[in-house]
């Protein structure tokens, strides 16, 4: 049997009667950058804690290279965690923090020292080896926390919202560095975040969790361009949810009608604001501009059609209303919930 590098099989976790995770099945490839995305309470952190060995699943199992991971206690797993608040040891220098994992495993002095130096160099923190955690900034702590985990050469690195405490600019910079680092070391990263733009920017694959279940998973582009449900559409980026009625291959949404390959009945579509542009286009409709929010690179318009339907449109210039259009393939039918 060929199987994935890391396989989750029908993983479940409940506290008493309250189910936090339900039948999570997922195959993760070696060297993949996977993001678990979800709101607070979606179970993403619990899933990460189960992988890290800090919590036990109440159902299902985890296989790493076909071997069950569940039986291995946290301190023996080839899996390391980077915690949300970095969890650096305040009484140890940066060097000692990074050396910790090697020291407790009884690594020789010379090997330890050269590996720690190499790890610090990889995250550009070699000049801070003698500093204590309280003497360095948040972004630097983040780098040290990464080095401390990577120096042990884990097979899987778990990252629990590691960038959430950083300010916006530093966050973007760290996202870029994380991605570079991940490619360089080739370790499987499992990244938890509630920030959809971060998830899209950083991952090879996004797993959207909702109420302890997988809502949708796929590459950032796939999950963004073809959301499966209204929840996925509105959680990942901004989306117009347009409801209509299908009759004989034509979806009537009031302001416009679109030919579709769907069964007769009610339907909801997702239409991304950036898919709407001033005409020309295949599907056209007239609308007035209610509000305009200027964002620098583009503007977000709120359009109101004659039927009362309101749509958001992301356009480059300024507009006073008139005819707008989109392509029919941008209208993504959603599963009814």
């Amino acid at each position, binding site marked *: 049997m060929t199987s994935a590098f890391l396989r989750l099989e029908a993983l479940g976790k409940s506290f008493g009667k309250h189910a936090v995770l339900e039948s999570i099945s997922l195959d993760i490839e070696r060297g993949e950058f996977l993001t678990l995305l979800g709101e607070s309470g979606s179970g993403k952190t619990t899933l990460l804690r189960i992988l890290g060995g800090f919590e036990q699943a109440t159902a299902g199992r985890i296989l790493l290279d076909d071997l069950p991971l569940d039986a291995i206690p946290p301190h023996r797993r080839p899996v390391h965690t980077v915690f949300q608040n970095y969890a650096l040891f305040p*009484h140890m220098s940066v060097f000692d923090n990074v050396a910790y994992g090697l020291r407790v495993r009884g690594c020789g002095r010379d090997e330890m020292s050269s590996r720690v130096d190499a790890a610090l160099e990889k995250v550009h923190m070699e000049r801070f080896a003698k500093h204590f955690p309280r003497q360095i900034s948040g972004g630097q702590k983040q780098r040290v926390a990464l080095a401390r985990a990577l120096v042990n050469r884990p097979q899987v690195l778990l990252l629990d919202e590691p960038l959430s405490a950083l300010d916006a600019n530093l966050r973007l910079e760290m996202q870029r560095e994380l991605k570079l680092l991940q490619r360089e070391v080739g370790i499987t990263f499992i990244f938890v975040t509630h920030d959809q733009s971060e998830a899209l920017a950083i991952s090879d694959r996004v797993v959207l969790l909702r109420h302890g279940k997988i809502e949708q998973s796929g590459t950032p582009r796939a999950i963004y361009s073809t959301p499966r449900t209204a929840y996925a559409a509105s959680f990942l980026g901004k989306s117009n949810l347009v409801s209509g009625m299908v009759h004989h291959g034509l979806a009537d949404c009031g302001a416009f009608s679109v030919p579709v390959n769907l069964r007769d009945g009610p339907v909801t579509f997702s239409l991304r604001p950036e898919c709407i542009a001033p005409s020309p286009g295949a599907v056209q409709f007239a609308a007035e501009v209610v509000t305009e929010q200027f964002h620098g690179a583009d503007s977000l318009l709120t359009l109101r059609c004659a039927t009362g339907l309101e749509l958001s449109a992301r356009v480059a210039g300024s507009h006073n209303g008139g005819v707008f259009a989109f392509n029919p393939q941008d209208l993504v039918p959603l599963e009814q919930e």
Partner: protein
Amino acid sequence: MTRARLVTLLPFAWIALFLFTPYCLLFCYSFWSLDAGQQVIRHATLANYLHLATTPLYFTVILRSMRIAFSVVSLSLLIGYPLACFLVFHAGKYRRILYQAVIIPLWISYLVRAYAWKVIFGNEGVLNTLLLWCHAIPHPLGFLLYSPFAVIVTLTHIYVPFVVLPVVASLEKIPHELIESSSDLGATAWQTFTRVILPLSLPGVLSGATFAFLLSFGDFLAPLLLGGPSSVMIANIVANLFGADYNWPLGAAVAVLILVMVLVIVTITQRLERRWRSA
């Protein structure tokens, strides 16, 4: 004067009246002396301090007080640290009730707790009776009561909560992620304890140990009630000088000496604590 200013001055007035003034009086007294009729002569002299320096008895008693206080600290840590660890990491839902159980003895009068040990350690006390009954010993153990042993056990019993409370506070302050992170990085439970938990709880250990040391060093009731001649402590000497001997100037000089020693110890421990905190 405004009302607000009055309120801020009040604590200073309190300290001046009830702390500073008595210490000043004590300090003055320590330089005065007694005449033949035991009347205080208010002329500054170093006679009291010279007497202290030239009488070996005081040195012996101070050394003994330190030894007893040190034993009390060691025993209190030996009992208090594991207890604090248990309370913080393993007690689960019983934590609150066990924590209360540590505090409740503080509500009981010191005298009652000291006398309880008399009942246990006496020749016909609980312990001797029990040992005799099961033929573990031929006749009652005499060293149990009226000995440094009894004083140390009693003081340990009384001051263990003073060690447990600050240690619990410092253990509680250790973020849980640090412990998880240590285990995540491959440390065994014991390695996590020695490398993370213990070093981070040292400030609590230090303040608990300082409390226990200073309180037992200055204790006079336990040696009075349970100690014999071999366990007279420095505070008993002060009590005697101010009481039966009616030599307030000499008593004041001993008290000032104790005060200075205490200040030295507190300064050292505070320095240490600051160093650990910043490290």
